[in-house]
C-alpha cells in the first residue's frame, strides 16, 4: 500500500514537472500592450505594400 502511494506520488511529481517544462517551453507571445516591430526592412516593405499602410521608422539609442 505504502509502495503504491510512493509510486503514485512519484508519478504525480513527474507529471507536474513535465507540466512545468511544457509551460516554460511554450512559444512566447508578443504582449498586446506593446508595439509590434518588423524583423527586417525587407519584411516591413513587403507587409506595408500588402496592407497599403505607411512605415514608421524609429531610429533610437539606449539611454
Amino acid at each position: 500500500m505504502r509502495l503504491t502511494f510512493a509510486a503514485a506520488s512519484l508519478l504525480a511529481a513527474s507529471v507536474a514537472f513535465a507540466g512545468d517544462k511544457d509551460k516554460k517551453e511554450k512559444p512566447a507571445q508578443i504582449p498586446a500592450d506593446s508595439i509590434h516591430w518588423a524583423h527586417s526592412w525587407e519584411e516591413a516593405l513587403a507587409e506595408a505594400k500588402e496592407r497599403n499602410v505607411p512605415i514608421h521608422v524609429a531610429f533610437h539609442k539606449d539611454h
Partner: protein
Amino acid sequence: MDVSVYPNKDVIAASKLCVNIFCNGETDHAADKKYGREEWCENNYGQKCAEHVKNHQSTSNLFFKGTIMNPTTILCNPDGTEIKRKVGAMPAKDLITMIKEAGAKVGPGITQDEYLFAKGKLKVADDALATKDTKEAIEALNSIVKAFAKNPADKVLVDMAQKKLDDINAAGMALVETAKADAAAGKVEDARKGLKEVFSNYKGLECAKVAEKEYAALPKDK
C-alpha cells in the same frame, strides 16, 4: 521615447495603422533575454537585439547622409520613400498625429489586427492542407472571406483566401472527374467513395454540390 512614448496605449493603438521598424545600432546592447522558448531584446518584445542592429545598418544609408540623429522618427510610403520626419524626442500625441496623417495619405489600408488574424487563418489553412484536412482549411479560409468581405480596404485579404478556396475547389472538381470516370468504367463503389469524400470534406464549395448531384445519379445498391 522607449520609456514614455512607445509603451503609451494610444501610441500602441496608432502603431497598428502602420508597419513599425525599430533601428538601434548599439552593439553593446544588453544580451537577449529568454521569454518562454524565445530570446528577445529586453526592450523590444518580439525582436532580437541582432535584428534592430541589422535594421539600423540596412536603413541608415537610406535616410541619413553622415551623422544619424537619435531619436529620429520617419514615416514612409509603402515603397519606403519618405513622407515626413521629426528629429528629436516628441510627445505621444505628436507621434500619433504623424502616423494618422501618413495613414490618411497612403490608405485606406489593413490594420495590424486584421492582417495578423488573416495571416493566422491562412497558416491554419496551409497546415490543414498539408495534413489533408480539407474541411478545416475551407473553414479557416471562409472565416477570412466572411470577416473582411464588406471592407474594400481588406480586399487583398479576401482575394488571398478566395484564391486558395478556388484552388481547393479545382482539386475537388478533379476528384469528381476521377469518380465520374470510375463510374463510366463500371467501378461504381470507387466512384461512390470518391464522391462521398468530396461532398463530405469540401462543403460550401461548388465541387461539393456537383459531387452530391453525381452521387445521387449513381446506380443504387442492389
